[in-house]
């Protein structure tokens, strides 16, 4: 079943959009947009759930009613605001970049900045320009992905983070992705491309914040290439408005002996969908994917994580943990692919959920596609409630019941938080998680 009203709307929106974008876009971007528009139109919103494994547990119909009335796109007059990093109070960061309603509005101008504004940076170096051309929209597979195609059609500016070979950045680069649109039904399409050269190390914070209570869709696409022998630590903190739809499509290529670590913390949004596709492109690549989601009321969170072990001697560790209260719902769909010839792959995934209410529901759907014999694949899933005997034990030592509960819930999340090596980020995520947990425990 295809939606017909929506695509028409896109055509109209796109022709408006094109009046501006055609003045900015290089030819190659123009053709990417055209192709993506075709795909988005032909796919339509994935509202059919029957026979659609990918969207089986997540009902997207509600998007249809309110959304797509207002697209955040560029205004020809938009000039990025320059942020002099030195003026920022927070010297724990290397640099910071701000998105507003999907549009990259800021750029740092410190000497060793690694961020440029996609399509809106007059000073973009030929090297950066090459990276853009080589990789933008090359990682994400658009063919069956309406939301990624939509983003690729309409993204306006964006951030390119290019870290050359042999570069070691100790402090994090912070992407602050902010929603503030007052118009109901706004659609924002943040676009991020990260290219890490060989033998380099970097830390990326991707934070989603909201300054509005309207219903909006934040539809981000993130593409990441990690060069040979490099390490990327990637932290996502998502605290979108409780009315919003928050969708991310992240694709990561890991080259030989490179390592990718991702820690995602989701606490906001009414409907959250994270697609994370990680591909070990070369031998020796490894990934560690951690996630915490804390939801209540009618929040719905759906994590689709695919690890594609395309090459031998690659390994992956995945641990997602959910804390669910109220009538909330979580879906974890973890797929592990081991390609033919990808011997000595070591892959493990687990999803554990703590249910704080009888009305909350967590679904875990593991899937293995293994085309090679000499591999180790493991999987674990758990779903449980708070251990009341542990609560009594804590109380018997003088600890009030509410504090006892929050200690146990926090301990559950802490299995992931304690693993965060960067102290500044660990403390930040700790407070982020505490903030949400306090709300959950208050409501109880």
């Amino acid at each position, binding site marked *: 079943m295809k939606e017909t009203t929506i695509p028409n709307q896109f055509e109209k929106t796109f022709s408006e959009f094109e009046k501006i974008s055609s003045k900015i876009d290089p030819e190659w971007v123009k053709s990417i947009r055209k192709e993506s528009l075709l795909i988005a139109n032909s796919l339509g919103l994935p509202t059919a759930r029957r026979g659609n494994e990918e969207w089986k547990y997540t009902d997207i119909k509600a998007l249809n009613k309110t959304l797509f009335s207002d697209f955040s796109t560029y205004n020809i007059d938009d000039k990025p605001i320059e942020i002099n990093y030195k003026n920022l109070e927070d010297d724990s960061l290397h640099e910071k970049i701000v998105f507003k309603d999907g549009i990259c509005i800021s750029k740092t101008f410190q000497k060793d900045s690694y961020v440029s504004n996609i399509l809106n940076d007059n000073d973009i170096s030929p090297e950066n320009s090459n990276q853009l051309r080589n990789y933008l929209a090359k990682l994400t597979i658009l063919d069956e992905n309406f939301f990624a195609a939509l983003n690729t059609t309409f993204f306006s500016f964006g951030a390119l983070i290019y870290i050359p070979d042999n570069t070691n950045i100790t402090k994090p680069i912070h992407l602050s992705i902010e929603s503030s649109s007052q118009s109901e039904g706004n659609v924002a399409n943040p676009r991020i491309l990260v290219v890490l050269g060989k033998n380099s190390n970097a830390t990326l914070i991707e934070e989603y914040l909201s300054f509005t209570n309207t219903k909006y869709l934040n539809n981000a696409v993130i593409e990441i290439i990690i060069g040979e022998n490099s390490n990327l630590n990637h932290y996502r903190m998502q605290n979108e408005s409780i009315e919003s739809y928050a969708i991310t499509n992240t694709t990561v290529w890991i080259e030989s002996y490179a390592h990718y670590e991702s820690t995602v913390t989701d606490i906001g949004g009414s409907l959250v969908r994270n697609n994370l596709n990680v591909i070990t492109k070369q031998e020796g690549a490894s990934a560690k994917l951690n996630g915490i989601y804390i939801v209540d009321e009618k929040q719905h969170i759906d994590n689709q994580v695919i690890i594609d072990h395309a090459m031998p001697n690659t390994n992956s560790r995945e641990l997602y943990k959910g804390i669910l209260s109220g009538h909330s719902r979580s879906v974890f769909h973890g797929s592990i692919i081991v390609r033919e010839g990808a011997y000595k792959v070591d892959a493990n995934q687990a999803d554990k959920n703590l249910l704080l209410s009888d009305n909350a529901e967590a679904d875990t759907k593991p899937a293995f596609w293994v085309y090679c014999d000499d591999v180790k694949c493991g999987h674990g899933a758990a779903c449980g409630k708070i*251990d009341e005997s542990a609560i*009594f034990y804590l109380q*018997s*030592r*003088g600890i009030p*019941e509410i504090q006892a509960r929050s200690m*146990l819930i926090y*301990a*559950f999340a802490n299995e992931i938080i304690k693993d965060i090596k960067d102290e500044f980020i660990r403390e930040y995520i700790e407070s982020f998680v505490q903030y949400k947990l306090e709300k959950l425990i208050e409501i109880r």
Partner: protein
Amino acid sequence: MNNILDIHSLHATIGEKKILNGIDLKIQSGEVHAIMGPNGSGKSTLANVLAGHPSCKVIDGNALFLGQDLVSLEPEVRAQLGLFLSFQNPAEIPGVRLDHFMRAGINAIRRSKNQDDVDILGFDRAITKKAEVVSMDPQLIKRSVNEGFSGGEKKRSEIMQMAVFEPTLAILDEPDSGLDVDALKIVAEGINTLRTKDNSLLLITHYNRILNYIEPDFVHILINGKIVHSGDKTLAQEVENKGYDWL
């Protein structure tokens, strides 16, 4: 001598089942009372009722601790007043370190008295000393509470906690079960070092052997949720020889 605990005609149920059928017991400061009885006679239930376990319901009677009826108090308030339960089977708490667990308890108790939180470093040093009381491996203090602990390590941990919390009344529910002779001796002697003229012990046990190390002032026999016989320490020996059937 002060009245520490005064239990009067205490009746309690778990679910639909009547477990305690009228308990009377008086404990004064400095005293050690042993409770013995066959399996399932209600020993742990009595301990749980006194500590405030939510699944035990008191349907009649009362239990005054330092003059205050425990029955209506939250478990944490009982602990804050100076009651301590060493569990027969303490729960595991994954992700909560034993030292943090104890510090949270001590701080909660201090806050209830409007005292400041403990100094973290000072507390760490103090608990290392307390671990020595029962020769507990100091590494265990940094691990998750009871997770992967052996039966003996759990018992040592409970008594170490007693040393940390310094309760007015410690209820020890089978601190001897699962311990070999050497460990039993260490734990029992540890308990003895914690005794003062101001605190009291309610020692629940299945066997006489721990009473060779911790000498009770009174021994009570609990059968079917009732104290059927009380006496001095010779009663324990008698039970050891003759079993419970003669009572």
